[in-house]
């Protein structure tokens, strides 16, 4: 009995301890890097002060000098010469063959002139620090040579700590009863101490909370039950694991990142937390009028109109063609079917570009046909209504084959006897359509409409390639607007992510509603 207790206690402690160890290690590494940065800055400062005092700085310094005042060139005000005074004598800074290290001195002197004395890390990612101190002859500048050596990992302390944890857990297990849970909790809680040193009180408190929860789970047998459950289904779960892990890495993580990014503002490479500011900006229309494309509600309206009109046209044309193709007296049915699904077969970005060419101003095919018929040429992309129509025409062309195929499948499932019997009974064509055809179409078209509406809602290629949002961004839909926030309005990734979250919520709502609606239909299938 006691051996089993000990084994289970150790198992739980090691399992959860591994996670805690990861968290503490990450905090430790970050802390170590911060420490290295601090040391680099201190070295640079000390070296600069030594130079200012006229002494030589210690060796791990890439460059150190007192830099004289700039002398501007007579022809070009922005060309300046400076001189570096080192122990080896004065050296001019600059010129076509000057080394890049000298440029660091030059840039630092320039920054000193603007901002005064400073110490900072170099912005080129080389982990070197630069410091500038004022002297009578000009700023004394020192630059460290390279990344600071990191403090060695205290292996002895790690081993000792691990031992302490195992001892605490073991003692608890041997004592039995309540002590088991306490032992596990105490053993894991020892991680809080290095966490506090490396990551501060926040991380330490979090670890204490996890340790307490683990102790409680162990004491109540929750972990035992969970592991038994996994073992019972281990085949199924192991089969699920590869795709599951891939989904977590490729979908859950980016999705969570996307959610989080919505709360930040991105400007020139820097991220600042702004809370709900992005969402507020979007949902209040960012101060633009309702008819302005930069207002979220305008784009939402356009997107809803776009989806609605398209789906109706898809279903109309799809069912119309399906009904015609279903006529038993139709010749060459196979041929018509093959030809009519060509729009679905051709990659849609190619046809979107063709349609854009067709709607082009003076010489596009559509305008040529119009003028051939004696009508006026239309400038398709200079007014909202015509640009929207151009997009709708393209997407209808792209989308009706899918509805046609679905409708065909549904129509094929209608038993012939039913139709014959209805005709014998003297029912008119309209009655036959309403009582027989429609009830068979609805269950198939239902899910197809939900799917089709989601695809249309997100149809990026057509909007981006045909009208490109013209005129003035007013034919943009939500997904293309999000794209523009990220890639065309100064890399405002935060706004784009927030808009993405809003789109996700809208789609989620519609999917749930749609599934609710179509479930009813499925039950009513004849």
């Amino acid at each position, binding site marked *: 009995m006691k051996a089993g207790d000990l084994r289970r206690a150790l198992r739980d402690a090691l399992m959860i301890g591994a996670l805690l160890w990861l968290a503490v290690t*990450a905090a430790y*590494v970050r802390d170590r*890097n911060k420490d290295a940065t601090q040391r680099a800055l201190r070295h640079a400062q000390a070296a600069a002060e030594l130079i200012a005092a006229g002494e030589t700085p210690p060796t791990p310094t890439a460059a150190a000098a007192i830099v004289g005042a700039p002398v501007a*060139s*007579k*022809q*070009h*005000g*922005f*060309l*300046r*010469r400076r001189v570096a005074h080192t122990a080896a004598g004065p050296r001019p*800074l*600059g*010129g*076509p063959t*000057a*080394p*890049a290290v*000298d*440029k660091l001195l*030059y*840039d630092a002197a320039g920054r000193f002139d603007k901002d005064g004395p400073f110490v900072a890390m170099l*912005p*080129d*990612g080389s982990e070197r620090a630069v410091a500038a101190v004022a002297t009578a002859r000009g700023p004394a500048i020192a630059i460290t040579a390279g990344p600071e050596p990191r403090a060695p990992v205290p292996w002895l302390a790690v081993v000792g700590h691990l031992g302490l944890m195992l001892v605490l857990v073991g003692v608890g297990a041997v004592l039995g009863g309540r002590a088991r849970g306490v032992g596990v909790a105490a053993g894991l809680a020892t991680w809080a101490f290095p966490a506090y040193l490396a990551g501060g009180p926040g991380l330490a408190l979090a670890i204490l909370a996890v340790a307490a929860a683990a102790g409680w789970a162990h004491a109540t047998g929750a972990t035992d039950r969970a592991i038994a459950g996994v073992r019972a289904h281990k085949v199924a779960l192991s089969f699920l694991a590869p795709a599951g892990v891939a989904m977590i890495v490729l979908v859950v993580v980016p999705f969570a990142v996307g959610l989080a990014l919505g709360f930040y*503002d991105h*400007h*020139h*490479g820097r991220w600042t937390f702004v809370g709900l500011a992005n969402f507020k900006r979007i949902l209040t229309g*960012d*101060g*633009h009028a309702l008819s302005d494309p*930069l207002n979220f509600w305008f784009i939402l309206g356009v997107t809803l109109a776009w989806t609605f009109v398209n789906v109706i046209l898809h279903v109309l044309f799809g069912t119309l063609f399906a009904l015609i193709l279903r006529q038993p007296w139709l010749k060459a049915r196979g041929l018509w079917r093959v030809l009519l699904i060509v729009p679905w077969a051709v990659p849609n970005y190619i046809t979107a570009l063709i349609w854009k060419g067709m709607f*082009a*101003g*003076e*010489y596009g095919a559509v305008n040529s046909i119009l003028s051939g018929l004696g009508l006026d040429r239309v*400038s398709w*992309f*200079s*007014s909202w209504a015509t640009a929207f129509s151009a997009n709708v025409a393209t997407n209808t062309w792209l989308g009706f084959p899918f509805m046609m195929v679905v409708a065909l499948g549904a129509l094929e499932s209608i038993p012939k006897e039913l139709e014959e019997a209805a005709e014998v009974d003297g029912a008119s064509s309209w009655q036959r359509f309403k009582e027989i055809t429609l009830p068979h179409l609805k269950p198939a078209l239902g899910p197809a409409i939900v799917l089709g509406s989601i695809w249309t809602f997100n149809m990026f290629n057509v909007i981006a390639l045909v009208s490109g949002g013209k*005129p*003035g961004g007013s034919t943009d839909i939500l997904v293309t607007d999000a794209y523009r926030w990220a*890639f*065309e309005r*100064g*890399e405002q990734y935060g706004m784009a992510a927030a808009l993405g979250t809003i789109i996700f919520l809208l789609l989620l709502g519609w999917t749930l509603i749609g599934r609710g609606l179509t479930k009813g239909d499925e039950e009513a299938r004849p």
Partner: protein
Amino acid sequence: MIRGLAIAALCAAAAACGRSDAAVTVWHAYDKDERAAIEALAADWNAAHPERQVELVAMPYDGFGDKLGSAIPNGNGPDLFLYSQDRLGDWTAAGVLEPIEFWIDDATAARFTPEALASLAYHDALWGLPVAVKSLALFVRTDLVPTPPRTTDELLAMAPALTARGSFALAYPVDDLYAHAPWLHGFGGHAMDGDTPTIATAEAVAAAGFARELVQRKVVPAEADAALTATLFAEGKAAMAISGPWFIADIPAGVPYTITTLPTVSATGLAAAPYLGTEGILMSARARDKDAAIAVALAFTSDAAAARRAERAGQVVPNPAAYRGALADAPRLAAFRKQLAHTVPMPVSPAMRAVWTPYKNALGQVVSGAASPAAALEKAATDIATYARTEGAR
């Protein structure tokens, strides 16, 4: 540390990791002749410097500026790149560029014309070396128009005869501010006054009205982008075109044409003055080997290299020494150099970036008759102000 492990693991598995082994990576958006010229220069450098290779990467022009602005601050961009100076203000604020005046002495600076070099200076530092100056000029098909128009009235007078033949007199992208700028400046207007946009001035309204008149009288097509302009000119459906030195490569052999300066605006007597853009080779603030990068930049802008670019690609190079010998009389280069006297430097203020799209929308509305010039430009001014306000608050 975790990041480093992740990168190492993924790089080991990946075929390509983005950064190459070449010492200096140069991004450009050149095509055809310009691309061939720059590739020849790179090949020469690589032959002479086997230990410090240069790698050219061709990017499509659409979105090139955006890609640079987003790649470089995260360490993913090139070491050098060829771009015009219009984003200078924006990029210096974002820390995208490395100031290079450190490496330039008076002797080197003397290679270039002072204006070209100064156009790449901003806030008391130098941000690149000038590679070519670009402005629009008037391309004229001599088979359709024997004498180019000297004033806009002459242009309008030529139109009916050409329309009767089924051609436009002139083709250019009417809604693009860059192409519309000659008229804007010809009517005395300016898009920017220092750091302030001056959009809805009376002169700008007059210029927009002139553009509308051109479209309504069928002098120019209502909707032409750069590609259509080239096609119309090549096929004789437009007798003239407003475009830049890059246009030369788009004209098929056998089309007789000449290049000349843009006409004077009759209403004001001022010359139609296009923007003067300086294309430069700029250094990324995150360049890995800055010594090698500046050496490559100096090599690509040397007098000899400039002469080869001028010869091969028709670039108007800002190196006076390159125009000795045969190039001195090259007619196409001469035409663009003559136009240089009537140009307005492209504004580099960061505020300019907000101007392009709203102005394009406004011109589109004006030209299609959907809005009056005054109303459309007022709306553009409001849009620009809103953008500047939200941008400035960040």
